[in-house]
């Protein structure tokens, strides 16, 4: 830890203001070259606290930086995480108003886990993740950054709630025992054209590995994944910028579809 408590709070407050006012700031890593990953998580908790003070409620968690390509870009070898609140969730077919809700959104295709039991790490195995999973759903995560032009280092994105913006739950909730989460294919379309394809293995070898990682990482801080929560397990395709007018589609083999339009 390098930053003072006062500085942590002021960074968290600034990111909160940016979120609400839809503006960006220069990377925290430029302003505070000594910032550590632990500092960044503490900033993210202040940002979260401000949202909770506003009446938002935590409904789940997200895992980010799960692909080798993004890990290489950010020069890290493990994922990160952020919190999901009720104000971030959209349903299949909804419209997301960029001009009032977002800054510089990008869409990612993921598998969402809906939990029916708590997961209390550390020591959680993949089998326990599957046992605790009520259903998996197709899901868009619409990432957004409060950092100018997405010029993020790992500390910047962690402090900024893992660049979470909003997410869209798709059309089906499938028992995980009925689908192979490693080989299930994903097709990402934009305005009808295929822009990317992938499969479950693109996220740390399996989306289940990602959820287990999160349960075990948060478990070390005494935080559990809770029954009823939505866990976004990480993107299976490269992220794709979206603008008003775009219509995005997602299909996952054996799971289902998700669709969202941007205005």
């Amino acid at each position, binding site marked *: 830890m390098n930053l003072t408590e006062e500085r942590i709070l002021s960074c968290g407050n600034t990111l909160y203001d940016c979120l609400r006012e839809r503006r960006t700031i220069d990377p925290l890593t430029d302003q505070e070259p000594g910032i550590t990953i632990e500092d960044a998580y503490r900033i993210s908790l202040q940002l979260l606290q401000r949202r909770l003070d506003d009446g938002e409620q935590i409904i789940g968690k997200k895992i980010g930086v799960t692909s*080798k390509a993004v890990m290489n870009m950010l020069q890290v070898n493990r994922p990160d995480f952020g919190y999901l609140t009720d104000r971030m969730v959209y349903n299949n077919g909804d419209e997301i108003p960029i001009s009032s809700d977002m800054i510089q959104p990008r869409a990612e295709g993921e598998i969402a886990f809906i939990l029916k039991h708590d997961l209390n790490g550390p020591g959680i195995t993949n089998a326990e993740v599957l046992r605790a999973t009520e259903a998996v759903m197709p899901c868009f995560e619409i990432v957004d950054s409060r950092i100018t032009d997405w010029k993020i280092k790992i500390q910047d994105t962690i402090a900024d709630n893992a660049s979470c913006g909003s997410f869209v739950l798709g059309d089906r909730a499938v028992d995980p025992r009925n689908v*192979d989460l*490693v*080989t*299930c*294919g*994903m*097709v990402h379309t934009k305005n009808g*054209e*295929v822009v990317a*394809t*992938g*499969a*479950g*293995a*693109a996220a740390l*070898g399996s989306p289940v590995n990602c959820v287990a990682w999160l349960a075990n990482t948060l478990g070390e801080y005494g935080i559990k994944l809770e029954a009823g929560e939505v866990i976004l397990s990480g993107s*299976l395709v490269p992220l794709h910028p979206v603008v008003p007018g775009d219509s995005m589609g997602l*299909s*996952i*083999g*054996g799971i289902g579809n998700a669709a969202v339009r941007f205005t």
Partner: protein
Amino acid sequence: MTLDQSTIRQLAEHLENAELNRQPVTKITDDHPEMDWEDAYAIQYEIRRRKEERGGRTAGLKMGLTSQAKMRQMGVSEPVYGFLTDAGSYGDGAEIDTAAFIHPRIEAEVAVMTKSELAGPGCNIGQVLQAVDFVTGAVEIIDSRYENFRFDLKSVIADNTSAAGFVGGSVMRGVDAVDLPTLGVVMEKNGEVVETGAGAAVLGHPATSVAMLANMLAARSEVIPAGTFIMTGGITAAVAVDKGDTINVRFQDLGKVSFRMV
């Protein structure tokens, strides 16, 4: 056609020798900038004739350049096709002699076997789905006979679209038993996931690729006969392989294809 028959025969021999001797050459359009699409396919068919004349069997057909991104990159609106040989056919679990190739790369694909004839023009996805006997996972080995894979479209068509071999899977499914656009593929090289993708990477649907093949063949008054094995096009990017590499490709609902480069 702009090339005469003897030039076509000479270029076919030139390219086939590059393959047989594992000696890459420069792209043939450097010396023959005037050659057109028909010339390019005429050279490919002459290579095929030479192989069949020596007793080789044509084991199927293959589609190339089947992603919108690749077509845009090459400035074309149609994919390209080539042929597969019995000599390049490997089974699941094979040990493949790396020395048989110049600079091999692999792509994961969905392959289909047909049970009835498909003829264009006007061949559509509905006809293709009815004509498919089974689908299976497969890996194509591509190996351009051009130095450093440096070629243009006409040169690569003449070079049988870089076709060099294929490894077929051992799980077959009827076309109704799988969802081809969302069928996922995971390619592992030496235990590490190197590529993932899904069937829609091939022209939106692998069966669309087969329909386009039938329609392109119609321009030569050819059909796709019943019993034709067709590699529909790369779902993943091409990955370079070398001696000692172990490859494992997992397909959603279609098992896996594994082999070792020795």
